[in-house]
């Protein structure tokens, strides 16, 4: 149980100084974890990460130590550390600040990961739009090479590690880990059939760990202060560390916040930290974990913002990106915009996702025009349930879940358009 209000990241954000190596070395104990980690056996390191209860920050919340444990010890092919910096789930904007204000946390974390799984090669797959962030990362990488924190024989330890920034080019689907790997290999970003999972056959067919930026940026803290300490930063069993929480939409103070995992309810977040709803209006809806997470009504916000509590009420923490919608916003219109995104970003491989998302957008548009029929609401649910679980990757669920939850929770809003016409 957490007793502290300690934060790890947010105090360094917004400060240009913090991205320099000197700041990292002097103000953040930079690169002390690396020496410690390289003195540990890989298995010991993996055990420490398991004990930390660090869970993936990319959306699925998978325990990081467990994921690393799947990597085979022996491999004929090189192993890879791949960082998912695609950050494209709508509502999510945390990895950008880690990369532009504390890039060395990520770079040190990558070397530690390399040692844990026996890899000497890392890639950071960054979304194409983050041009400036890619440049800052490349500058930090160059500094790390110049000062012996990357490259051959890092700090005289005999361990080698290389990092390359690989820019994406505008495709949401490349955040899905196997699509990302195809894109890294110079192909279209189409998800792969699993198994084999990346841990067995990932980048260039070698065993590969794919982790989110925030996940890996936590490692220097875990190594320096121990798995138990990190686990105790969280407030619920099995969920360690702090969470960077992004709040956007109709609140007075949108932006990034950081709490011990499970340290805040959505109500507290909105009203105590973000100053309440714009114009002191009433709350209509909250999307708690990036736009693919099922929507919550105003009467559901006393839930603790963490993995298990949200799962229990049928939603998900996802990327801890909370989007807030006030009472006078048209949620049917909002759903249309969300479906449009997923329809546009569907890679097209799986029929249910490719056709279903487009079809659902057409139906919602029709409803908005005042031409909907009562049956259309059931049809939306029917199409969504025929996408859910029937596609190669979770983009299918990402479009099905918002539709299912909006229809379930805001049915009267849809009916008003159907019965009252376009000006409902």
């Amino acid at each position, binding site marked *: 149980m957490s007793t502290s209000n300690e934060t790890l990241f947010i105090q360094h954000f917004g400060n240009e100084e913090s991205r320099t190596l000197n700041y990292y070395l002097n103000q953040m104990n930079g690169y002390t974890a690396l020496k410690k980690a390289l003195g540990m056996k890989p298995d010991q390191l993996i055990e420490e990460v398991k004990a930390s209860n660090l869970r993936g920050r990319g959306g699925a919340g998978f325990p990081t130590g467990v994921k690393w444990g799947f990597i085979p010890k022996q491999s004929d092919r090189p192993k890879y550390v791949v960082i998912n910096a695609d950050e494209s789930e709508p*509502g999510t904007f945390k990895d*950008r600040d880690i990369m532009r204000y504390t890039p060395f946390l990520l770079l040190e974390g990558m070397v530690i990961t390399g040692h844990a799984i026996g890899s000497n090669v890392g890639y950071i797959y960054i979304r194409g739009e983050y041009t400036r962030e890619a440049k800052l990362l490349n500058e930090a990488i160059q500094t790390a090479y110049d000062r012996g924190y990357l490259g051959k024989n890092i700090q005289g330890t005999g361990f080698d590690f290389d990092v390359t920034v*690989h820019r994406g*080019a505008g495709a949401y689907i490349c955040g899905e880990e196997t699509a990302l790997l195809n894109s890294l290999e110079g*192909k279209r970003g189409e998800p792969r059939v699993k198994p084999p999972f990346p841990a067995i056959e990932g980048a260039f067919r070698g065993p590969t760990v794919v982790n989110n930026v925030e996940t890996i940026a936590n490692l220097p803290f875990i190594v320096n202060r121990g798995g138990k300490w990190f686990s105790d930063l969280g407030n619920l069993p099995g969920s360690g560390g702090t969470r960077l929480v992004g709040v956007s939409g109709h609140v007075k103070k949108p932006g990034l916040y950081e709490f011990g995992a499970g340290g805040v309810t959505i109500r507290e977040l909105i009203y105590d930290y973000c100053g309440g709803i714009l114009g002191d209006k009433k709350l209509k809806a909250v999307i708690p974990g990036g736009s693919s997470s099922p929507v919550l009504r105003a009467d559901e916000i006393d839930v603790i913002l963490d993995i298990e509590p949200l799962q229990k009420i049928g939603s998900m923490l996802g990327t801890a990106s909370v989007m807030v919608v006030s009472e006078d916003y048209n949620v049917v219109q909002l759903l249309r915009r969300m479906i449009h995104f997923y329809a546009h970003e569907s890679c097209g491989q799986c029929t249910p996702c490719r056709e279903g998302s487009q079809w659902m957008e057409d139906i919602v548009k029709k409803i908005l025009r005042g031409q909907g029929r009562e049956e259309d609401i059931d049809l939306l649910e029917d199409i969504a349930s025929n996408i859910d679980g029937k596609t190669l990757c979770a983009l299918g669920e990402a479009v099905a879940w918002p539709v299912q939850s909006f229809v379930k929770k805001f049915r009267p809003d849809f009916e008003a358009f159907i019965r009252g016409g376009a000006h409902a």
Partner: protein
Amino acid sequence: MAKVLSDQFYSVMKKLEPRYPNKVALMLPALHAAQEEMGWLPPESLDEIADYIGCHPAQVREVASFYTMYNLKPVGKHHIKICTNVACCLRGAYDLVDHCEKKLGIKVGQTTDDRKFTLHEEECLGACGTAPAMMLDDDYHENLDTTRLDELLDSME
């Protein structure tokens, strides 16, 4: 085949080669580098990239056409991309789009007659806490309103 890509392109690629286990992996970096110097990706540049990588030109087209950032048609001197995804939409992104369309006399997807501006709607830029946001060429601009948008566009050469 007359070369369209510069020596600079080839020297950037040479530096990247040792970073990847094979040449096909240089596909995205090569497309980015080519677009950076040409502003878009004319067909000859795609053929030349195929030649450099040692693959069929169709393979380069297949990849280039998958990603929205690769311009397979010429764009204006300045590329305006306004995010209209959820967070920006909640903060008035469509007012910005309407304003731009009126001001420039073009619709989304079009380029002005003087080829100065191309306007696009963009999917989530990852700047939701400072919405509404847009990209103007390589730069992000956040917490926008129409006044700030006017200032920005008027200041472009």
